[in-house]
């Protein structure tokens, strides 16, 4: 099991490298003169040459990539072309805001969505179910920035209860978390309802009923665990996706997270900024997926066996080759 996890994590290295090469290539060949963009149209030839040299832009496509990767090996993400600020520093400062937002919004989504979905499933075709389905349909279809604007209108402009900009107090996080969380909870509720309905109809639930078990215990002991397996996938995928920052939400509430940083980097084709964010994003994405897989093995014992057997089988095959 431990070996499996290490292997999965090591796999992230080539994947991240590939991502870096792809993104670098696109950015490098984008038709833009970075020196003139940074220094202004009237910049002297000498200043431009200096700029290009400083940023490794004079080394060509391959040279630039090799320098970037070399520096990365030492944990150096380079500096922004335009502000000369260290990318790694920026990421470290910004990461906590994004992580906080991602974890809070996903937790909100699970805490609201999972019970709601189960409740809707256990009361299938009742008014409660219809109401839940209508609401979740609405909330999963509407974009998060729309909720954000509505919330700002109500709670900042009308009641003046919550600040609409800033990031210092917990109050700043209420609206961003709720506006993303509502969307996430709607998606999770729909998934939870569908998987719960499937589990409720399964034979082993009938078996539990045949033992004389109470409905409430059937839900908590038999349905919840089996029904939540697909929910873990959805929640994990959401968390991973949010590591890139909730772009519009960070923008609306002026949260200085990865999203705003990445966005500014893309807008100005600032290679080190974009590559830094993307590298970080791909590593986190991979780690979260590994984490989700580990959670799976706790929830569903079949997964664990599948993993162990898989590595055992390979070991046998390898042993067979050498002897």
């Amino acid at each position, binding site marked *: 099991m431990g070996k499996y996890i290490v292997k999965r994590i090591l796999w992230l290295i080539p994947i991240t490298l590939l991502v870096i090469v792809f993104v670098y290539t696109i950015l490098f060949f984008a038709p833009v003169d970075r020196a003139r963009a940074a220094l202004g149209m009237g910049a002297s030839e000498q200043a431009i040459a200096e700029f290009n040299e400083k940023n490794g832009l004079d080394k060509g496509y391959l040279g630039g990539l090799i320098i970037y990767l070399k520096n990365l090996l030492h944990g150096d993400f380079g500096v922004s072309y335009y502000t000369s600020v260290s990318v790694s520093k920026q990421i470290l400062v910004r990461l906590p805001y994004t992580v906080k937002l991602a974890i809070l919004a996903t937790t909100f989504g699970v805490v609201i969505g999972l019970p709601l979905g189960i409740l809707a499933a256990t009361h299938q075709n009742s008014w409660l179910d219809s109401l839940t389905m209508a609401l979740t349909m609405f909330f999963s279809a509407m974009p998060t920035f729309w909720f954000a604007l509505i919330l700002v209108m109500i709670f900042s402009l009308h009641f003046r209860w919550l600040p609409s900009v800033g990031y210092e107090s917990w109050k700043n996080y209420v609206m961003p978390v709720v506006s993303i969380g509502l969307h996430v909870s709607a998606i999770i509720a729909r998934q939870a309802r569908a998987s719960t309905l499937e589990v409720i109809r399964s034979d*082993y639930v*009938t*078996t539990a009923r045949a*033992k*004389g*078990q109470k409905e409430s215990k059937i839900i908590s002991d*038999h349905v919840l665990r089996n029904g939540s397996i697909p929910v873990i996938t959805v929640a994990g995928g959401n968390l991973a996706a949010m590591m890139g920052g909730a772009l519009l939400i960070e923008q609306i509430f002026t949260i200085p997270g990865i999203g705003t940083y990445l966005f500014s980097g893309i807008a100005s084709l600032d290679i080190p900024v974009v590559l830094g964010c993307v590298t970080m994003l791909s590593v986190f994405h991979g780690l979260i997926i590994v984490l989700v897989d580990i959670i799976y093995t706790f929830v*569903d*014992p*079949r997964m664990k066996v599948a993993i162990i057997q898989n590595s055992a089988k390979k070991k046998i095959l390898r042993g067979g080759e050498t002897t």
Partner: protein
Amino acid sequence: MAETSFLEVKNLVVEYTSDKQVIHAVNNASFSLKRGETLGLVGETGAGKTTIAKTILRILPDKAAKIKAGEIFFEGEDLLSISEEKMRTIRGNESAMIFQDPMTALNPTMKVGVQISEAILLHNNCSKQEGKKRAEEMLEKVGIPGQRFNDYPHQFSGGMKQRVVIAMALACNPVLLLSDEPTTALDVTIQAQVLDMMKDLKTEMETSMIMITHDLGIVAEVCDTVAVCYAGEIVEYGSVVEIFDQPMHPYTIGLFGSLPDMNGGRARLTPIKGMMPDPTNLPKGCFFQDRCPYASDECRKKHPDLNNAGGTHTVRCIRKGDEQNA
């Protein structure tokens, strides 16, 4: 009849609704069972056997299924009119069911032992440790080492899962056991083992049983009485001797077409030409008319009653009725 009846099912009607269509799964089924006796419930797929068993435990899917009519007297009490709370004290305790498909009947994310002790803890005033001990004993009883308490269903073979399902049903020493094809999922050698085990357990615990099966060998071996089920109704009913010696309903005769190889080995019910009528659209008259070599005009007009054919033997066929009346 009522004096010794331990289980009595009377005029049971059960319908399923799916896609707005009404499936007439059980139509006026009646039979009874004495204490310690085993009733064989036979009939082809879709005849309503599982539905009858689930109705007795009241574990039909509550949205899709509806019990339209009937009474089920179990130790003198009508199971269809008691409260859900009361019913829960009977389920898994006095009356238990062995499910048809062991592959899906066990919860994949719950330890096998915990699934067995679940019923024990529910119906006995005992500690968790005591429950675990008894579950381990049940495992041993069905031939699985007690240490496997902590294993999950996927770590078991099909045959072992079936034993677990049996151990689960027997955990609280039920007086009524509903066995839904307990051996079809097993290969022949294990079938014999499981059957022997069930027979032993049955005598040990004095359990009455409804044995649902396609296997005439099993019927001959373990059953005292037989009910032949067709399109949701009982078309022939009687003791094993009566039914095997003198099957009367054309459907039963057709099923027993393979009887000559009884000595050779396990005889299975032979398929009869044609298909069972569509349960959403049952014909007027006899349900077997389209497949019956003796069908007459009258069979198409009038639904036959259950006629007495001597002893405890009853048959739902007008030919028998005619003979009787003549």
